[in-house]
């Protein structure tokens, strides 16, 4: 293979610690749903569901009283709702990047973490979708967003980036779900054939839609997977670009910039990797998967975090440069607000967390130590949340009309819903870890050393 031609230092190291046979892999990964979860799991799940309950209660209160319960008020009509939406959608993008883009680049290390990352995509998009839905105030009328023939004889405005967003995010959710599910079908088939309990067996049979793993199945399957990866790659780039259009297409100073689409996409991947990182560390430790998710995996992920962090630094610089070069007093004002306004500390938090702290990863020792990984990943998550806060709230707070300037102040309900979304996300992650295969066993089997016939095929010689 081409791998062999590379110099030693560039070759991909073994993707598992020690030799693992196909059966052992199944026993390690697929046996999880067969056992009763440990007490630790129950404790964690109780905690996350309590947090989700707080969030859901705040959402219920909002629905009952109206969104006056939040801090949003003229001129800051977008605040936590949209910040959280952009934040969560962004988190999801790491999953698609790992499962689709790295697949196209034939990065085999993606195989053992792709499943988890894809699951996180789904859960993150679910969390993201909550926010625009409750922001419309009357979510039971949210179907008005779709173009269906109605008695008002009206169509939605197809020139509005907000409608583009509806299509982008919905498509993204459906495609991610399909991608995730298709990847899981053969694994669920393995679980079906392991299951002893007839009810469980039936459930897995239905979920695996009767997958048999015949040569034809695999042939079409591989083709479909490749096509899906290609399509998802284009999609993931478009989704966050469209999200950035929500801002860039408007004329608000600080929003109206051409750098927004690539800048948002990079930020999304950056934040997403940090989140995947944190979850992977927990999974790796608690589920005894150290052999399959190796230090090498974590280290490559950290390199991606470092790379995207540098890109973010560049984007911030370019933003500042554009503002200065525009010679536009409104944009100048907006940018001064970012760093020296009432919420100036938020702007500095963004720079420190997103650009400075990840630079620690230049050291290979820090790339391989848990404390520094967790520290950086947490910093990035916080920094990326504040980045959206700065972009959204600061730009709106002081726009063209000084008479309507007003300092934005979030309410407790705002914080409650934000907290709740984390609860929902982690509850789903925990559930997933117990009922479905957390590692794409079929994909890992295909790359285990010695389990693919040598290139050219033995049958030629036979």
């Amino acid at each position, binding site marked *: 293979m081409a791998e062999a031609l590379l110099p030693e230092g560039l070759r991909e190291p073994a993707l598992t610690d020690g030799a693992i046979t196909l059966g052992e892999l199944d026993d390690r990964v697929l046996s999880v749903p067969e056992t009763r979860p440990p007490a630790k799991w129950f404790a964690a799940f109780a905690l996350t569901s309590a947090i989700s309950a707080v969030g859901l209660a705040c959402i219920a209160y909002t629905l009952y009283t109206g969104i006056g319960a939040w801090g949003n008020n003229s001129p800051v009509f977008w605040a936590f709702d949209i910040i959280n939406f952009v934040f969560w959608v962004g988190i999801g993008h790491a999953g698609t990047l790992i499962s689709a883009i790295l697949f196209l680049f034939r990065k085999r290390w993606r195989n053992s973490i792709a499943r988890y990352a894809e699951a996180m995509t789904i859960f993150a998009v679910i969390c993201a979708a909550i926010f625009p839905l409750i922001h419309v105030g009357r979510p039971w009328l949210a179907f008005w967003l779709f173009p269906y023939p109605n008695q008002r004889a009206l169509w939605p405005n197809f020139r509005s980036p907000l409608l583009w967003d509806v299509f982008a995010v919905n498509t993204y959710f459906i*495609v991610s779900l399909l991608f995730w599910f298709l990847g899981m079908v053969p694994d669920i088939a*393995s679980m079906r054939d392991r299951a002893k309990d007839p009810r469980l067996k039936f459930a897995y049979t239905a979920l695996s839609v*009767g*997958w048999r*793993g015949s040569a034809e199945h*695999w042939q079409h399957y591989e083709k*479909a997977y490749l096509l899906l990866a290609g*399509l998802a790659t284009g999609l993931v780039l478009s989704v966050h670009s469209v999200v950035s259009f929500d801002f860039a297409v408007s004329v608000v100073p600080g929003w109206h910039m051409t750098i927004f689409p690539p800048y948002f996409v990079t930020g999304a991947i950056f934040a997403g990797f940090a989140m995947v990182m944190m979850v992977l560390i927990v999974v790796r430790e608690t589920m005894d998967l150290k052999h399959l998710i190796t230090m090498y995996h974590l280290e490559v992920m950290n390199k991606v975090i470092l790379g995207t962090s540098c890109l973010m630094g560049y984007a911030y610089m370019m933003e500042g440069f554009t503002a200065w070069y525009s010679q536009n007093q409104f944009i100048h004002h907006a940018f001064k607000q970012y760093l020296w306004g009432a919420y100036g500390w938020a702007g500095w938090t963004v720079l420190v967390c997103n650009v400075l702290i990840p630079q620690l990863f230049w050291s290979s020792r820090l790339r391989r130590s848990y404390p520094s990984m967790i520290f950086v990943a947490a910093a990035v998550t916080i920094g990326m949340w504040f980045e959206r806060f700065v972009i959204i709230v600061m730009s709106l707070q002081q726009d063209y009309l000084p008479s309507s300037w007003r300092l934005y102040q979030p309410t407790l309900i705002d914080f409650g819903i934000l907290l709740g979304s984390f609860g929902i996300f982690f509850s789903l992650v925990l559930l997933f870890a117990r009922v479905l295969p957390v590692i794409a066993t079929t*994909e890992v089997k295909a790359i285990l050393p010695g389990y*693919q016939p040598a290139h050219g095929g033995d049958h030629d010689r036979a």
Partner: protein
Amino acid sequence: MTEPSAARAWAVIGLFERPEDLLRAAARLRGSPLGRVQAYTPYPVHHLDEALGLRRSPLGGMVFVMGVLGALTAFAFQYWMSAVDYPIVTGGKSPRSWQAFVPITFEVMVLFATLTAGLGMLFLLNRLPDIFHPMLASRAMEKITRDRFALALESSGGQGVDVDAAKKVILELGAQEVEVLPLPAPAPAAPLNFLLGLGGALVAACVLAGYSTYWVIKLYPELPPMSHMERQPRLNAQSPSGFFKDGRGMRPAPVGSVARGHRPYLIKTPEEAARLVNPLPRTTETMEKGRVLYAVYCRVCHGFLGDGRTTLTSAYGAKPADLRIKRLALAPDGTIYHAIMVGKNAMPSYAYELKEDERWAVIHYLRALQRAQDARESDIP
């Protein structure tokens, strides 16, 4: 169809331990007259499709066609909706500015293409879901999805596979284990019952959901918070409210305040009012205005002609004045103005309903009514 016999089976499956063994065996068995050759593996094994001589998957073409179709659909729909059916100008752009339709066109293209790739692969090409396939009942399946590689000779067209011959061939190829799936394949009755049951349950669920939704909406057209903003913390005209101490939703004007178009009226008696002079010129517009206002406010009681022939029933209990009588015809405008302002006995005050100039306009019209019904010889030109 042949009768099920000991010598014929639905499939004969051989299990191999290594993918290379499977590849070698598959290439040798290819085109065997004994039955359809099928391979089963726990993961996609490279070159297996070549060894079995499978045709290339047509999925790429399907996805391309559906992607193009998705893009065209999305673009055509957007164009028709926002440029033809209901053209709107947004941001000063022509309703036909197609550039704005590009993002959604792209998203829908991806959606169509992915659904085709994913579901087309599962349902069309792989003919799933098929959860009652005979292969799933085999013991070999449990090993296949774990770590074994299987090569099977399967019956095509219900003929069955010659067990002995097939077993021999497969063992010769180096299979470690052989399993025979008996003919006939597991009865299709179970799937039928199952499908009927599933369909029935779905229909029942839909009917139940439909009916309950219908009744819930009928019985509770608005359930908070889904009250369509009906219930709001606000003051409603002419209805009580707990917000003020006196329990009234409508507020009386603060003492001493003067509403627009109204001036404080300090005159107490008709005699005093007699000195008021009608400030309005007697023009067609004033007359027309007076006619309309008379019809709105006075006609119910005083009748079309001002003759006191009321359209009210006897329940009203009083007799509105005949406005044509001499006393009123000769009375100065001020006297009538006073009657409008303070009312008289059973006639309420119209001070609130009519603004100052409106009152005078009504008086002009009333004069016209009086004069019209008091024609003199000298009126004839």
